[in-house]
Every structure is written in C-alpha cells, then in structure tokens.
C-alpha cells in the first residue's frame, strides 16, 4: 500500500508541475516517468503528455522514441477523442518516419475511417509494438462499440464481430455480457441472422435529439422579468 501511496503522490506532483510550471526543461524526466506510470497503471493524462511532446520540440536532442510510441498508443486508446492528431501536430516529420510511428499512423488511419477489419489485421502483425501498453485491445473495442452506437439501431452480428475482432463462443459471451449490463437486446433478423439492438441514444435515434435550436439560456429570459412585472 505504501508504494501505491507513493505513486499517487508522484502523480499528483506531476499534474501540479504541468499546471504550474510547464515551460521548464527540468521536468522532462518526471514527465517521461509519468508516461510509463500511465502505461502500467492504465491511467491517462493528455495534458502531461502534450507538455512532454512540447518539451521534446524545444529540445530535439532529448527525444525518446519508445516514450513517443507509448504516448501515441495511449492517444489511440483515447479515441474517439482527437488526441492522436493532437500529438502528431507536435512531432517533427523526421521522427514520424520511424517504423513504429509509421505503423501507428496507419493504425490510426484505419480507426478514423472505421476500417476495423484492416485495423485488426495490421494490429496482429504488430503485436510486439502494441503489447507494451496493457488495455489496448479493450480500449479499441470500446471505441468500436461507440461508433456502432452512433450509427446503428439494429446491428447484424457479423458487423459487430468484425468491429471488435471477437468470434464464436467468446463473441457469445461478450454479447451476453452487454445484454445483461448495457441494455442490449438480442433479436432475430429477417435473414435468420442475429441482430443486436443497441440502446437508444440521440445519435441513432435522431428524433430523441433535444431540439436545442429554439431553446434559450435562462439568463436571457431573466432579462424580461422586470418588464413582465
């Protein structure tokens, strides 16, 4: 427990550093250690990682490719947030030519364009790069489910299978879990295939979209209270 507490202390201090004194080359090593900590404890801090990439920009001699790779993998896991692009904006072109980083850019491209089959194929070929960061697969699967929830009211089983790269019995287990916990419903499709009915949200049920166009902020209405009285 003591070590955990120490780790918590260290994380607290790094976040403070980034908030209070970010433009300082002395914190570079702390930030690098913090990246490794994010990897091992499955946490994530965009601000700290951007701060580090900025410092690498200021001191190109101190750049560490393995750390950059880890930051980028963590950013991929944060999808659908645009963190991966935000990181790329700060990485010089020559560094982006490194093999591992080129691979990650390709993977990001597949994810951005929802080409999940190609993504999982390419990811399998680069297992050694990706397995340094635990939780990668689950994070991407969560992103895939997110995109499916935006798009589908009723999604055929093969589409899900391709998106999250699970088949057979494991897929059955996965779907059972979501039926029990996330409000999914199993249905029979018209060609006897299985269908998952995803929970209703305002994106796959546009009629649910709160029509904010004619809404008014309350403060504006208060302006006419003196007149009404």
């Amino acid at each position, binding site marked *: 427990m003591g070590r955990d507490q120490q780790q918590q202390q260290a994380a607290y201090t790094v976040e403070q550093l980034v908030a209070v004194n*970010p*433009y*300082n*080359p002395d914190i570079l090593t702390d930030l690098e250690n913090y990246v490794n900590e994010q990897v091992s404890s499955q946490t994530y801090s*965009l*601000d700290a990682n*951007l*701060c580090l*990439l*900025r410092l690498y*920009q*200021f*001191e*190109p001699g101190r750049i560490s490719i393995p750390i950059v790779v880890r930051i980028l993998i963590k950013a991929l896991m944060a999808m*659908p*947030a*645009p963190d991966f*692009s*935000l990181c*790329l*904006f*700060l990485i*010089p*072109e020559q560094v982006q030519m490194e093999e591992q980083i080129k691979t990650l850019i390709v993977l990001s*491209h597949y994810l*951005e*364009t*929802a*080409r*999940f*089959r190609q993504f999982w194929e390419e990811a399998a070929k680069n297992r050694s790069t990706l397995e340094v960061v635990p939780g990668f697969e689950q994070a991407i699967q969560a992103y895939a489910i997110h*995109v*499916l929830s*935006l*798009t*589908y*009211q*009723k*999604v*055929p089983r093969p*589409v899900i299978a*391709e998106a999250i790269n699970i088949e057979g019995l494991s897929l059955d287990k996965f779907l059972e879990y979501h039926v029990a916990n996330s409000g999914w419903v199993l249905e029979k*499709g018209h060609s006897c295939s299985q*269908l998952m009915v995803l929970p209703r949200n*305002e*994106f*796959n*049920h*546009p*009629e649910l*979209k709160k*029509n904010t*166009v*004619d*809404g*008014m902020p309350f403060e*504006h*209405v208060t302006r*006419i209270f003196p*007149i009404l009285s």
Partner: protein
Amino acid sequence: MASSYDYDDASLDSRYPRPPSAGQGSAGTDQGYDPNFVPDSVKTFVVHLYRHIREKNVYEIHQMYDGSFQRLSDRMFRECPWPSVEAIAPYVDNDHVFCLLYREMWFRHLYARLSPTGRQRVESWDNYCSLFSVVLHGVVNMQLPNQWLWDMVDEFVYQFQSYCQYRAKLKNKTEEELQLLRQYDQAWNVYGVLNYLQALVEKSAITDVLEREKEGLEQFTATDGYDYEGGTSNVLKMLGYYSMIGLLRVHCLLGDYHTGLKCLAPIDISQQGVYNVVIGSHISTIYHYGFANLMLRRYVEAIREFNKILLYILKYKQYHQKSPQYDQILKKNEQMYALLAICLSLCPQNNLVEENVNSQLRDKYNEKMTKMLRYDDEAYAVYDELFTYACPKFITPSAPVLEEPLTNYNQDAYRLQLKLFLYEVKQQQLLSGVRSFLKLYSTISIGKLAAYMEVDESTLRTILMTYKHKMHAIDGDGKIIPNADVDFYISEDIVHVVESKPTKRYGDYFLRQILKFEEMIGELDRIKLD
C-alpha cells in the same frame, strides 16, 4: 507544395503599409540619421507624454500614443528610426520606466517601417525582459491605455515569431550574423517567452479577478480594466489578461491547439469582455480560437465564431480606417473568410452564417468552395492554397544548429501542419458523396446505396461509420457534439435519413423585440414636450 500564396515570411513587418520610397536598408545606415538629434516636435512629444503618464491622464496618453506618435512617424520618421532613448532621456528626468516604454515603441516603429538587424532584435528582447521584470516586481503605478498594453503583448509575440523565422534561415547569413546567433543564444528563447507570459498571467492573478467578477465580487469588465476611482495601476492586470491571448497565440504557432485553448479558457468569449474592447485583441483572439477549433475538428464551433467576428468587422471597419492597424484588420478579415470557406466545405451547415457574411463569402470563394466539395486533386490544391494563405506562421522553437551544412528550415513547421491537415481532408474524401446521396432519400437499403456509390456493401458500411465518427466531434469535456446537417441511422440494413430542418427561432426573436420596445418606451417617456 506549390501554392500561389507565398508563405515565406519576409523580414519586413507585413502588418504595416510600406511607404514606396523605403528601401531594404537596415536602420542606422540611412544617410542623415543621427540618433542623437532630437527635433523639437519630438521633444514636446516626450515631455507631454511623460507628464500625462505621471498625472495618470489615460485619455491624453491614448491621444498621444495613438495619434501624435503615428503622425510624427509619418511626417518625420518614414525611413529612419526615432531619436535614440539616450537622446530623449534628459527631457524626461531620465525616468527608467519611461525610457523602457519609449524603447519599446522605438523598436516597434523599427519593425514596422524598416527591417531590424540581428543585433537590434536581440536588444529589443533585452528591453522586453527589463520592461516585464519591472512590471512583475509590482513597482509600476501608472495607468496606461488598453490599446498600448495590448500592442505590447501583441508585438512581443510577433517579434518572437519573427525571430524564429529569422534564425531558421541560415543559408545566406553572414559570418557576423552567425556569430551573433552563437553569442546571444538566449535571446527570444522559447522558454523565456512562454515563462514571461505565464508569469504575467500568474502575478496579475487575473484568473481570480475574472472568477470573482462572475460572482459579482469585482468590477473589471465594466470599467474596461481601469480603476477610475482608486487610481491603482492597471498595467500588470491588463498585461496578465492580454498574456492569456498571447499564450493562445504562441501555442498555435507551436501546433499545440489543445493547450492554447486551455490558456484562453478563463476568458468567456460568448460574452462581451475586455478582450473585445481593443479591436486588435478581439480579432486575434477569435482568429486563433477559430483556427484551433478547426484543427481539433470542431467545425461548428469555428464557424460560429468566425461568423460573429466577420459580421462585426463588416459593420465597424469603417471606424478604423484611419487607424494604423487598419491593414492588419483587413488581412485577418480575408484570412478568416478563407478559414470559414474551409470549415463549411468540410462540414456544410444550413443556418449558421449570417446573410451579409454569407454573400461576402460567396463573392470571394464560391468557385473554390464548389471545387473543394469534389475531393479530387484539384480540390486538395484549393485546400492547400487556402490553408497556406490563412494559417498562422508556425515556428520551429528549438535552437538552431549553427554548423555546416547551413540550411533554411523556417518552413518545416508549416509543412508539417499542412501535411497533417490535408491528411485529415483526405480521410473525409468519401463523405461528401455520401451526403449528396443521403439528401435524396428518406430510406434506402445498404445494397442499393452501395450500388449507386459503386462500392461493395462492407465498404459502404465503413464509409457510413466514418461519416458518423467525423461528424461527431468530442469537445474538451468529452461530450459528443453532432456537427452534421444531414444525419441518419441504420436498422439492420436499411438506412433511415434524418435531415435537420432549419427551425425558426421564435423565442429569441420575441425576446429581442420585447427588450427593444421596452427601451423605446423608456426613451419616449424621457422626452419632455415643451
């Protein structure tokens, strides 16, 4: 990539019109310039300015700063610098702070009308360091006009950007210039610039002031930052305020859009505030805010803000025709139209752009916007051209490597941002095709749509998911913001299209009219009929 807009930053300050006779000669070598000669008009100018500052007469200071200084510059100092600070110092009791302020104006004039040498750039950096140190130590008790304080921060960031461009062009530097770069390697270093801006923000406690103002505990916006009663200095507070905008700008130059927006966060741009008192600060804030949102794919937010500022400029630019910033206002205006064209091509919207702004936009960019929607090679060339024209002058912040081979790498940062931007555009290539088909149907099966678009069904499914992903941006709080004007959902293998109809905003309309009539009634009441 070739483009018809020359990105390369000339060493001349493109913000100000160059008098036709002015040459490229660096200051100090023009014939007849004697730094120690002080014409009478300058003597009067500094004596009066010094007196007004001591008497805290902000109005007079502003008249002299904005009016007399420009007039004297136009009349007497078109091609040479003002008299040196040592020459005018005796007329102002050798006041240390006044001399720093005078020098700041002196260098600003130099950058605007002439082209500074390497040594002068370094000296200007030293002057800013001294000036900011004095302010940060809290010993300043003057009140200065906001225009002047904004110009200081604006110029500080501008000279930093200019220096980064200068020292990244090594190919044609003389040995003397290279030696200067080696010797003064701390001048305009990125840490110094960022830390000064950060220090001004912190020392002024401006974020606390803004917080307290929200709770009604402090007057700030209402008095434009001045202290009319107490007469305490507004210099540190306002420099702190403007430094937030300065930080946004520097982060955009570095390509760090997320942090830039965070630096601006304490300023609520949905409200009137001190940032829009000085038109230069208003435009700079919105330009960088909009650009950062564009790179973060928050297109609707960018469109909204560009629309507001372009409308404002349309209405009020006539009042600034005589101002020295007029050309800069016009330039930024054109750049923002270009950015608006880009945003609307990537994310078409029905109702967000005001009529007059829209007609200006169509005048300038109708053809180009049609081209951009086609997503072929010609389209990418147009995106390239507009981006190059409108983007900030990105910089490489690291220190130069002053050994052979000497190269010019001042365009590297820009090329990277452009490349990544076009990469994003290419990813959205198939989306405009989907959009045009979706507009034609209320329901359509995946099979049929795939046939029309000449792709197979699984490719179509990925295209539809890409559309959904790209059209739903994630904002800073992790909320999903839908951006699309045409939306859909899929049920098994039928696509159901939902087009958002532009609704009439009755509520807002009635509110505005009620308030207007109430105001009119009040005014009529006040008229006394004799």
